[in-house]
C-alpha cells in the first residue's frame, strides 16, 4: 500500500482546517493534572478563544490564564507580564502546578520561558506554597493540537517523574480521548486489579458534577504524587499508532527511568481492544475478567445481528490521526469500508498505521491523506461516494451537502450535547459506536424510502 506524503493537493491556502493549534492541546492536557492551572504565555486573545472553544465541546468551565501581552511586551519581551500573571494566578487559584505553554507570539519574540520560570521561583524565595511551574514549548505554527497535547504531557512527566524501586502499577498515556473513555479505562484497570496512573486524566475536571460553589480548580486530574511515581512503574502503555519516533511521555520514561513503553492503537473496536487487554494481561499477570469477556460476547452478537445493515457501506473518517486509525480499524471489522482516512496532522505515519490496523479486514485499501483541510476532504469525498462520515462536528456542512449521516466522535462536538460523554474505547465503546453507525444507516434508508416501513 502506498504511503502518502504530506498534503498531496496543490492548494497553498487552507480552507476549513481539520486540526487545531498546539497551545490548545497543551491546555487540555494540563487540565487533566490535579490542582493545575493552564497558563498561556501570549496575548489575551488566544487564551479566551481556546476557553471558548473547549467550553463549546465540554460544556464545562475552563479557566486558562494568560500573560496578556500587549504591544510593549511584544517588543521588549514578555517576562514581566509572565511574572505578574503567575503571581496573580498563585494568589487567586492557589494551584499546585501551573502549566505554562508558549504561543506563536512568545516563541517568535524569543522569550526563554524555562529561564523566566526559574527566575520567578528564585524571586519568590523558599516559599513552600510555590506551585510547580512546568514550561512547554508550543508554537502554534508547528504541528497541531495533538503535538501540543503530547508535549504538555511529556513536560509534566519530565518535571515530576522520579525513578525508584519498581512498583507494580502501570502508566497509561491514553492521548486525547473523552472523559467517558477515561472513566471506562479506569474501570477496566480496576476490574483487572491493576494499579494505574492515567495521564492526563480530565474525566472529572472537564466533566464534573453540578456544584454549589464555583471551584477555584475543579477536583480530579492525575494526582501529582502518582506522576512522581510514574518513574518507577512496571510499564507504560501509550495509546496511538502514529506516535513512533516521537518525543512523548512514554518515550521519556523509558529513556530516563528505564520503564518499558508499549505502544498500542487506541482500543477502538474488538481487535484493538483485544490487543489492549492482552497486553494488560501480560503486564499484570491477571486474566481478563468474566464480566469484560461477557461484554465482548454480547458485542459480537450485536455485530452479527446488524452486519447486513452496515456491510459494504463506505465511510470517510477524519480527525486526529490516532483516532482515525482506531476508527478505521473498527469500521473495517464491522464490514464498513473506510474509503478515506484524513487528518490535518502530519505525523508521516498515518498511512502505515491505517494499513497495519485494517490490512486483513478490508478488500480495498483506503485512501489516506495527511495534512488536509475540509476543502480537500470534500474534493476527495466527491469521487469516493461515501455513505457516511465519521468524525467531529466540523464535518457537518459536508455531510449536509452530501446528504449522508455524520457519526459524531472525538473532539470537538459542538453541534450536539454530550460530546464529553461519547464512549469510543473498549468493548463497551465499540457497542455504542456500532449501534450508532448501524442505526444511522438504517434511519437514512428508512427516511429515504418511499414506503416508510416500520421494521428493519
Amino acid at each position: 500500500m502506498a504511503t502518502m506524503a504530506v498534503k498531496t493537493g496543490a492548494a497553498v491556502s487552507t480552507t476549513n482546517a481539520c486540526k487545531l493549534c498546539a497551545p490548545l492541546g497543551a491546555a487540555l492536557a494540563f487540565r487533566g493534572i490535579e490542582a493545575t492551572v493552564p497558563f498561556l504565555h501570549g496575548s489575551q486573545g488566544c487564551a479566551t478563544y481556546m476557553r471558548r472553544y473547549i467550553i463549546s465541546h465540554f460544556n464545562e468551565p475552563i479557566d486558562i490564564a494568560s500573560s496578556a501581552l500587549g504591544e510593549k511586551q511584544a517588543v521588549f519581551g514578555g517576562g514581566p507580564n509572565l511574572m505578574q500573571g503567575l503571581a496573580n494566578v498563585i494568589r487567586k487559584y492557589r494551584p499546585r502546578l501551573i502549566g505554562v505553554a508558549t504561543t506563536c507570539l512568545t516563541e517568535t519574540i524569543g522569550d526563554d520561558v524555562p529561564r523566566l520560570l526559574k527566575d520567578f521561583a528564585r524571586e519568590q524565595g523558599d516559599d513552600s506554597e510555590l506551585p510547580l511551574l512546568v514550561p512547554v514549548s508550543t508554537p502554534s505554527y508547528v504541528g497541531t493540537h495533538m503535538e501540543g497535547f503530547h508535549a504538555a504531557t511529556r513536560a509534566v512527566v519530565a518535571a515530576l517523574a522520579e525513578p525508584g524501586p519498581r512498583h507494580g502499577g502501570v502508566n497509561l498515556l491514553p492521548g486525547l480521548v473523552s472523559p467517558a473513555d477515561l472513566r471506562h479505562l479506569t474501570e477496566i484497570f480496576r476490574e483487572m486489579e491493576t494499579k494505574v496512573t492515567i495521564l492526563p486524566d480530565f474525566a472529572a475536571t472537564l466533566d464534573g458534577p453540578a456544584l454549589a460553589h464555583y471551584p477555584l480548580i475543579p477536583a480530579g486530574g492525575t494526582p501529582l504524587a502518582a506522576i512522581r511515581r510514574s518513574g518507577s512503574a512496571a510499564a507504560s502503555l501509550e495509546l496511538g499508532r502514529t506516535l513512533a519516533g516521537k518525543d512523548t511521555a512514554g518515550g521519556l520514561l523509558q529513556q530516563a527511568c528505564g520503564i518499558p513503553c508499549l505502544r498500542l492503537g487506541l482500543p477502538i473496536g474488538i481487535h484493538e481492544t483485544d490487543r489492549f487487554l492482552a497486553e494488560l494481561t501480560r503486564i499484570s499477570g491477571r486474566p481478563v475478567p468474566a464480566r469484560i469477556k461477557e461484554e465482548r460476547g454480547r458485542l459480537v452478537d450485536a455485530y452479527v445481528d446488524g452486519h447486513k445493515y452496515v456491510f459494504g457501506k463506505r465511510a470517510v473518517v477524519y480527525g486526529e490521526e490516532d483516532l482515525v486509525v482506531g476508527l478505521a480499524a473498527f469500521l473495517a471489522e464491522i464490514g464498513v469500508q473506510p474509503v478515506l482516512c484524513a487528518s490535518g496532522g502530519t505525523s508521516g505515519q498515518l498511512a502505515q498505521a491505517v494499513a497495519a490496523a485494517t490490512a486483513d479486514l478490508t478488500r480495498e485499501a483506503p485512501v489516506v491523506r495527511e495534512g488536509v483541510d475540509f476543502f480537500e476532504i470534500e474534493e476527495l469525498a466527491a469521487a469516493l461516494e461515501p455513505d457516511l462520515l465519521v468524525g467531529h462536528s466540523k464535518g457537518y456542512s459536508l455531510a449536509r451537502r452530501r446528504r449522508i449521516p455524520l457519526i459524531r466522535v472525538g473532539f470537538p462536538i459542538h453541534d450536539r450535547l454530550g460530546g464529553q460523554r461519547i464512549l469510543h474505547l473498549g468493548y463497551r465503546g465499540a457497542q455504542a459506536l456500532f449501534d450508532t453507525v448501524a442505526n444511522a444507516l438504517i434511519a437514512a434508508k428508512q427516511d429515504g424510502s418511499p414506503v416508510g416501513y416500520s421494521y428493519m
Partner: protein
Amino acid sequence: MAKAPIPILAERARQIMVSGDPGAAMDCNKDSLAGAVSQRACVFCGSRVVLYPIADALHLVHGPIGCAVYTWDIRGALSSGPELHRLSFSTDLAERDVIFGGEKKLYRSLIELIDRHQPKAAFVYATCIVGLIGDDLAAICRQVAKERGIPVLPVQSEGFKGNKRAGYQAACKAMFQLVGTGDPAGISPHSINILGDFNLAGETWLIRDYFARMGVEVVANITGDGRVDAIRRCHGAALNVVQCSGATMELARMMEERYGVPSIRVSYFGIEDMSDALYRVAAFFGEPAMLARTRELVRTETAALLPELEHYRQALAGKKAAIYVGGAFKAFSLVKAFRLLGMQVVLVGSQTGTAEDYAELAAITDPGTIIVDDANPLELSGFLAARGADIFVGGVKERPIAYKLGVAFCDHNHERKECLAGFAGMRNFAREVYASIMSPVWRLVPRQETAEAAVASEEVR
C-alpha cells in the same frame, strides 16, 4: 447559603463598583491584567466579528491555524444569498514561513482563493505573528487588487495591539476604503444605513422590515447580511443608524467627516429602545406621513406583544438577573428589558465599556447593583452566588459558570440562534428567560439543596 469569599485581585479593585456608592468611578478601557483569566479576546477577534457577516467577501486570516479555526463560522450571522463568510480561510503559517516571511504564501493563497471563489472583495486579517515577522500586508493586498481587479483590504488586527475595541477600529478602517467607491445614484432621500447589527438569527431582516414599513430605504446593512457593493455606495444614504455595540461607531464618524452623513446611536433591544430607535429615525426625516406610519407600527407591534409579556411578568416578577456582555450599550437595554419583566438586576458588566458607559449603568440600575469591567470566572461566579442571581445573561464563556452553579442562563452573544432584537425579539427574550428560570431542573441542583438545608436548619433552631 454560605458565602464564598469573592477573590478580587488588588489591581482589579477599581474595575468593580457598586451602584449608588458615592464617588464611585470606573477605571476601565485598559489592558487585561496578566493572570486574571479575563473573558476578553483580542484585536483580531474584534475585527473578525465585525467584518465576518459580509457574505460575498473573502475573509483570509494570515497567521497560524488557531486564529482562523477558532473563528470558523462562530456567529449566527445569516445571509440571504452568498455564504462565503462561513468558510474559514487561513494561510496556516508554518515554522518556515515564520522564519522566511509569509508574504509569498499570502500572495499565493490570495490569488488561489480569489480565483476559486470569485469574491467581490477580500479582507486580509493580520494576526499576532504577522505583527512580529513584519510581512507587508498592505503591499501584497495592493498588488493582488491590481492583478485581480477587486478591492483587497488589509485589516491591521494584530492580536496583541490592544483589546477588542481596537479591533473594531481596524475593521472600520478597512471598510472605509470601500465606502465611496460605488455609485450612489438613485438612492432615496429617505435612506439610511444600518450599522452595528450582525444579523444573528435574522435580526437585520427584522429591522429592515420595520424601516420598510416606515417608508425608509436601507442602502447597506453594515455588516449583518452585508454585501460589498452596498457598502461601496452607502455614502449616498441620508443617515447612519448605529446600533449600540460601538463596533461600527468609528465608521460612522469617518463617514460623517468625509461625506457629511450624520449618525444617531440606537438600540433595537427591548420595547422602549426599539420604539425610540424608530421614532428618532422618523424625527430625523421630519415627514408627518412617515411619523404616522411609525406610530402605527409601534402601536400594532406593542399591542400584540404586551398581553403575552404580562403572562411572563407574572411568573418572573421579583427574580434577580445578572448581566455580563461584550458591549455596554447592550447592557443598558438589558437592564431596561429586565425591568419591563418586573425583574431586578443585581450585577451588570461588560468587556469593553467606557467610563461614560459605566456612569450610565450606575445611573439606571438600582442602588446596590454590582458593576464590573473586564471580569473573570472567579469574580463572576462569586457575584452570582453572593447576590443570589436567578438568571445570568452572557455568552458561551459565561454559560458554564452559570450552569455549574445551578443558575439559569440566557445566551445574548454572537452564537445565539434566537432573534432578540425588535418587538419579536422582546417576546423571544421573555420566553427564553421564562423557559430557563422556570425549569424544574433547578430544584435538583446543589445550590438549591444547600439553600433548602439552610432554611431547614433555621427552622430547627
